[in-house]
Structure formats: C-alpha cells, structure tokens
C-alpha cells in the first residue's frame, strides 16, 4: 500500500465530480432574461424598415407547419443575428385563439381563418391579415404498372375507408387494393383524413409508413398498392389524376394545385392581427425570399409559385396580389385575405 500515490487519483476523481455537479447546478439556473445580448457590431443583412436587433417573435398554430415554421425561424435567426423566434404547435385553431388574446405574434394555419374567428378578431378591433408561405398538395400514387386512368374523390374516399377493396370496382384489373397510409401523427395523414375521407377512419388494413419516401418505396414495389404524399416526391410511381365532384380529372401538377382545380391542395398560411409591423413584417417578407422558400422544400412542402415575386408594396401593405409570375421583387408583400380559397 502506498498511500502517497493514490490521493492524486482521488482528488482528480473528486474534482471531476465537483465539476459535474457545478455544471448540473448552473444548468438549472439558465432561465435568465430571454432577450439575448444585443450585438452592436452585427447589422441585420436584409432588414427593410425596423431594426431587428434583439427582436423577438412568437409563432403558434398548425401542427402541420411546426417543422416548416421551425426551419423558417432557424433560417431567420441565422441571417438576423440577435433575434429570437419561438415556434409552437397546437393546431390551427389554437393559433387563432392565441392571436386573438395576443399571446402570439403570428398564427400558423393550414386552413383559412373561419367566419367565427374573423368575427372574434373584429370584435377586438383588428383584422386577420394572411400571408401565404408555402403550398401543400397531395398526390395519389399507384404502381407504374397500374392502368387506372383516374379516380374521383368519392372513389378515393371509398378506397381508403376500406369500402372499395378491389381495383376492378374503379376500372382496373381484378386485384385487391393494398392501402399505404401515413402515421397518424403526420399532418399529411390528418389532411387526407379530413379532406378526402371527410373525417372518417382509414381502413384498419391500411399499412402505415413513417414517411412519404417509405410510401413511395412501398407503392413502387407493389403492383396493387395505392398511397398518398407530396407531389414533388413521386418517383418510380404513377400519380393518378383526380376528379372533384362533377369535374373532369385533373393531373396533380403544381399549376393545377395553384389555380385550385386539383382537389387536394392548400396553401399554408401565416396570420397576423392587423397588417404585420416591425419584426413580424420583416419576417414575413423574408419568408418569401428564395432563401427562405428553399427551406420549404426541405420541410416537405412546395415553394410558392413565383416565390419572392410579390408585388412592389412594402411589408404591411395589404392589397398586393402575390401569386403570379412577376419577376423577382425586392420586398414581397402578404397577399390579400380575399383571394384565399384553395384547399378548403
């Protein structure tokens, strides 16, 4: 036993644990003032109007848009040092409620504001102003060997509810229909359930897969399979033209999604109470830049057609119609509330 040699190890060990304990302690006290220190030497790169130093903004609402909004927030914070954006979900309705009682600056919504919510806001003496930030459209995939020319929305609904179980019932060959669906936490699942199944349950036999890529992989390997997911992903599968009630079948292209003739497409929206001002205006203008619209694709949605091609009005101006093919503008504007009908 050589007692003079071991203390070093012991002390080292002890100090290690001491340090660990200190770190653990200080971790508990991290909730300091939320505002980050203003960086005097870091002017915002592209800030029309208000200065963004130390600005904070909260976005709340649609669960479908949480990932998208988070990506927007990260991108915005990266290019606008010192600003803090907080994103939370809860659903489109939650977002509108928060906008109403002033607990959020921007409400994310995957559906247009409804009459009741509009009225409630008006009672408060303000108006909901809407900005389209991305396009969301679902394509229906079948195997490339599947020959059905098109499906009506009623047929599609029947297929995914499990009422139509053989392809021969919808003009295909005599083979069972194999359903591929998404996990029930996905916004795509919720959207499809609401807009195609009219709120009814998916058939129990529908296989649920953890992502659009998995659905496409499954459908591409299954001659009797049918699945749904974003338009942009369809590779190795065939997308089926869909017919709304009493209308001709429409192919799932971006143009048809934008002009509203394709039955399952919608805009993803951000609402402010009154015309956006300050950081909110700056953020919403930034969201329409090509830089931000590139994030839309990453989040699994579609960039706005002619993104960053808004009118010439500055942030806050209400009436500039934004979708269209005007050349790249400098300061895109939120679109007018009236023109939003797609997707409902």
């Amino acid at each position, binding site marked *: *036993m050589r*007692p003079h040699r*071991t*203390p070093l*190890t*012991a*002390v080292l*060990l*002890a100090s290690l*644990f001491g340090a660990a304990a200190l770190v653990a302690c200080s971790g508990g006290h991290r909730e300091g003032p939320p505002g980050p220190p203003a960086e005097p030497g870091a002017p915002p790169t592209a800030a029309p109007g208000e200065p963004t130093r130390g600005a904070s903004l909260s976005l709340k609402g649609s*669960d479908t848009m949480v990932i998208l909004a988070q990506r927007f927030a990260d991108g915005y914070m990266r290019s606008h040092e010192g600003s803090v954006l907080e994103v939370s*979900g*809860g659903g489109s309705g939650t977002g509108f409620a928060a906008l109403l009682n002033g607990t959020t600056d921007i409400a994310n919504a995957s559906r247009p504001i409804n009459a009741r919510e509009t009225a409630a806001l008006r009672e408060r003496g303000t108006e909901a102003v809407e900005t389209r930030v991305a396009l969301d459209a679902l394509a229906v995939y079948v195997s490339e060997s599947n020959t059905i020319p098109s499906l009506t929305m009623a047929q599609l609904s029947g297929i995914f509810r499990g009422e139509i179980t053989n392809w021969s019932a919808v003009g295909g060959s005599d083979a*069972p229909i*194999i359903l591929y669906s998404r*996990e*029930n*936490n996905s916004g795509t*699942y*919720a959207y499809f*359930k609401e807009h195609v199944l009219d*709120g*009814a*349950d*998916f058939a*129990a*036999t*529908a*296989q*649920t*897969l*953890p992502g659009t890529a*998995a659905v496409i*992989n*499954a459908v591409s*390997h*299954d001659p*009797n*399979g049918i699945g749904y997911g974003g338009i942009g992903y369809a590779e190795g599968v065939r997308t089926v033209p869909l017919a709304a009630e009493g209308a001709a079948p429409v192919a799932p292209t971006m143009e048809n999604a934008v002009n509203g003739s394709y039955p399952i497409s919608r805009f993803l929206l951000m609402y402010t109470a009154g015309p956006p001002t300050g950081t909110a205006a700056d953020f919403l203008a930034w969201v329409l830049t090509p830089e931000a619209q590139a994030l839309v694709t990453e989040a699994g949605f579609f960039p706005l057609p002619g993104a960053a091609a808004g009118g010439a009005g500055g942030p806050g101006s209400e009436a500039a119609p934004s979708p269209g093919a005007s050349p790249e503008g400098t300061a895109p504007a939120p679109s007018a509330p009236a023109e939003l009908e797609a997707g409902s």
Partner: protein
Amino acid sequence: MGEASEVVERISGRASTPARTPLGQGFRTPRSHLVAENAIRVVAFAAILAIVLIFAIIAREALPLFFDAEAQEELGGLDALLFARAWPGYPEARHIWQPVGDVPKFDVVPLLAGTVKVTLLAMLIATPVAFLSAIYVSQYAGKRVRELLKPAIELLASVPSVVLGFFSLVVLASAVQALFGTTYRLNAFVAAIGLSLAIVPLVFTIAEDALRSVPRELVNGALALGARKHQVILRVVLPAAMPGLAAATVLGLGRALGETMIVLMASGNAAVVELFDPTSSARTITATLASELGEVSPGDAHWRVLFLLGTVLFLFTFVLNRAGAVIIERLGKRLRAEAT
C-alpha cells in the same frame, strides 16, 4: 488449531477472535479516499436509480387514466381500451386503434395482437436456428470451425437494428412476396424474419455457453457406457443444459418484444386483429410508441394511453429479463453441484 486453518477462518469470515480488525481496515482512511469511494458508489447505484425513476415517470403519466374522470371521458370509458365497441360509422362492434380523429378510438387489442403475433413468429424462426447452430458449434465443430463460426454469428448482433429493418423492408419483403405470393408485401412474417436476425445471435450465444458448460464428466461417462454422439447430445447434454436453453429463449423473447426499428419498418403497421395469419400486417406496441409519441400533445388521452402501453411493455421485458437471469444463475449452481 494450526496457522493455516486460522487464515482460512479469517478469509471465510468466521474469525473466532473478534479483537482482530478485518484485513485492509487497519489504518485510518484518508479523506480523499472516502470522497472517491463515495463518488463511485453513487455511480454504481445510478443504474438502480435510473430504472426506478424511469418506471415511476412512465407509470405516473399513465396512472391518471385510472383515476381521472376527464381522461376516461376522452377515452370513451376505460373499457374502450380492451373491449370491442360499435363505434359510430361502423356496422358492428370492433377493436379499432384510431387515436387521431373526431372520435378517437384507443382499443389496444390490435396492438397487443400485433405484438404477440410478430414476437411469437420471430421466436418460432429464431430459436430452432439458434439452438441447432449452438449444438453444432459446441458439440460437433472442430476448434478452427468454431473459432470462425462463433464470432461470425455473434457479429450479427452488432448490426444496427435500423439496418436490419431496412434490409427487411427492401430485400426480404420482395423476396418473401416473390416466394410465397403474399397479398401484403410488408407483413408480420417479413418482420419476424428480420427480427429473428436480431435475436438469433443473442439466443445462440447463451445457448452455446449453456451447452459447453455441461460438465465434461457427464459426456465422458455417457460415451464410456457406449452411447453414440447424437445420443449423448440428445439424452445428456441437452437435458443438462435445458435451463440455459430456457434462459436463452426467455431473453430472446424479451429482446423480440422490445425491438422497435425492424418491426416499424417491415411489418406494415396496420392495426388489424389477426392473430393466426402470418401474411397479414401487424402493428406492435413498440412501433406504435415510436411513431406516435413524437407529436402527441402531453397530457391528453392519447399521450396517457401510449405511456400505459410503455408501462406494460416495460413490465413484460423486465420480468422476462429477470426470469432469464434467475434461470441462468440456477443453472450455474446446479451444474457446479453436479460436477463436484
């Protein structure tokens, strides 16, 4: 009483002279040593603490289901968890797992059925393969073959389950469909094969250890009495190693129950109640937790039911692992007793 027996007494703790202090405690321990000793004691006990905390926290989230009237109302009554019901829009009473929607349906029976189906199928495939390879490697294979085979099979255990899952999803599923013409490309059978790839090395390792630890004397005795090799293995080695083989099975079962990624990717995850058709899809508890827990809002009924499922899974795997460990321990004792 000689010097030697005194040492034996002290070592075995039966010292008859209480005046003597135990070895290693005759000097005053420096404070730094005490600090270090206590530090590593904390670390050692952290594992127990972790288990207790994990269980307590998971169970705490699930418990309100049983006591909170509001949570039960969200479920549609506690009996909605287990009993078929004629939900609006359905012609007859059915077990339905549809936790998201206007009328959420939290019947866990499809998930239990899926879990049991996939797990048992995987065990049916994995245990014969693992046992037969263990018998070959431990009884028949020469030294060189054994040194090649054993690490190779055990290497399979180091393949990440997500890789096995991907392999099942892309390669196995197509192969199975081409071979058997199954209606569903992703099904319980495919998942079970993928799962068995993960279980075989575990079952094999324990089984092989058990077979090899059968005392040589038993084998030699049987051989000396004129038994053939296969007779020795069937009548002597296997019965002697039976507890070890049972432990291997039980631990394999625990692993199969808890495995997530492979079943998530390969089973199709349709929540159907089909216990006896291996070619239909299956949704397991683990896959359900993995895919749904991420975005459910904390505190609502869906969240609590998922935690309830987690608690059940935890209890099952905990009991299975404990049972396996106990069996192995008993086996060790018995063999030691037989050998002496």
